[in-house]
């Protein structure tokens, strides 16, 4: 009996050694990447619960460039950074803006796109333009815990700011007529306004991004101190920009180049 046990132990130890050796030999980078899944067209869930969208395609292209094996998980927006810090996944590709306050807690690659924020209002709205003065006393809906909600709170203090868990809810509420305007990324609003669900509303105008609040754009988020991975992503972004893969994905979703200016 004891013999058998020893033998089994020896075999399993040998198997372990082999598998470690194999992992070293391949040296494949295995990454788990999180996205939100409620921010179309950048990321959303298909009817069978899989992630899709611009963020996901870009992420897959980056993984291919880095020769990494990537698996995707969807994660609630509010818990995104805490879960990254807790090591539940290695990176976030979820249109997360590189903001100063996030940089205190996590690290980012360089941006992979940068589009300006915008405001949409119902078609029969009497709001003339996007200035805080015109929206004074109006109710402005935003997704909570985003650079847009921070910007709304900082600049549109004359308006009543309502914060929603995801972009889906503010879209419902402006269609129902509970709020007078919504603020979000111009591409996100644009796609919704083109759809049937967005037929209630129109784009009022785009806002010039405030670098102190919006940052330089959306980047790949990694755990604080994991600059090696962030640099790999930055290099991969530059590579897919250069080899045309980025343009291919970009054109699949948008009419304009969402990358924005160099910088």
């Amino acid at each position, binding site marked *: 009996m004891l013999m058998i046990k020893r033998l089994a132990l020896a075999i399993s130890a040998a198997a372990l050694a082999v598998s470690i050796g194999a992992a070293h030999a391949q040296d494949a980078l295995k990454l788990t990447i999180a996205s939100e899944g409620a921010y179309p067209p950048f990321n959303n869930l298909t009817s069978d619960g899989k992630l899709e969208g611009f963020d996901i395609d870009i992420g897959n292209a980056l993984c291919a460039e880095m020769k990494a094996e990537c698996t995707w998980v969807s994660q609630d927006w*509010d818990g995104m*950074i*805490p879960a990254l*810090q807790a090591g539940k996944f290695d990176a976030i590709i979820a249109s997360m803006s590189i903001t100063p*306050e996030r940089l205190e*807690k996590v690290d980012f690659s360089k941006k992979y796109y940068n589009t300006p924020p915008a405001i949409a209002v119902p078609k029969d709205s009497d709001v003339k333009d996007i200035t805080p003065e015109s929206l004074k006393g109006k109710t402005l*809906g935003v997704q*909570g*815990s985003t650079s847009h909600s921070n910007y709304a709170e900082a600049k549109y203090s004359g308006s009543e700011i*309502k*914060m*929603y*868990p995801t972009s889906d*809810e503010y879209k*419902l*509420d402006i*269609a*129902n*007529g*509970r709020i007078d305007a919504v603020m979000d990324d111009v591409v996100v609003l644009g796609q919704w306004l083109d759809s049937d669900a967005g037929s209630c509303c129109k784009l009022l105008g785009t806002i010039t991004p405030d670098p102190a609040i919006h940052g330089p754009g959306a980047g790949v988020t990694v755990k604080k101190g994991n600059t090696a991975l962030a640099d790999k992503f930055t290099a991969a972004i530059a590579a897919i920009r250069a080899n045309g893969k980025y343009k291919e994905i970009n054109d699949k979703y948008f009419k304009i180049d969402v990358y924005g200016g160099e910088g």
Partner: protein
Amino acid sequence: MTDSFLNARPSTIVRPPAPPKKWTRGRVGGHFLVGLWATLLIGLVVYLYSAWNIELIQKYGPSYLEGLKTTIGLVSSSILLGALISVPVALGRMSKNRIASAIAYAYVYFFRGTPLIAQVFLFYYGLGSFRPQLEAVGLWTFFREAWYCALLAFSLNTAAYQAEILRGAVRSVPLGQWEGAASLGISKVVTFWKVILPQALIVALRPYGNEIILMIKGSAIVALITVYDLMGYTRLAYSRTFDFQAYLWAAIIYLILVEILRHIWDWLERRLTRHLIR
């Protein structure tokens, strides 16, 4: 003789020595658990002391207070409104009339059988999509406001639970009380108010307390429909700082709230049951 016999009694009473306290398994386990809890508590205090961040408290303290006000306002109004609604529902549940009893049963069945968050969403987003119809009957101004939607959902939900508490308590009073009152020629209504209800409320008191505590904690979901209560502001503070202290403070505030309520309930029970103390 008898005098001296009485005086002969020793002035101190000699008792048999206490049996030696053995270190039974239960006792060892108890000491261990108390030690564990004490360590956790000390750990918490030490953590809060080391993580003390006056900037954080100055920045988010006022919003926590604002959220606490919303929580207390919403819970107390819905509990009171729910208590009002629960009376007819409880009467319906106890009624011999088949239709009234069936309606009350269906109401309680629905509100106890579905999650509170689903009810809140139904009232807020569900009814929100019937705007033209609601406008036609002049109810839109009510359903437009998230706070009123939350109030309505919470009141109807708690009314279902409170109706069951009330019904159970009234049923717990022996039938003999009804019969006794009837034999004295007291009308049913007076019997209910003066004989049955005072006895039933003693039974109902603790479950009522539980229900309020459950509502306080259950109300933490209203931030999902843009009513920023204590939990809503906590999540906001957390999403800005990523410091889990934010949740710790919220937990402490909720604990204090529940603890205050517990003491009020202890006092109420002592007051209501003082005739039962021998």
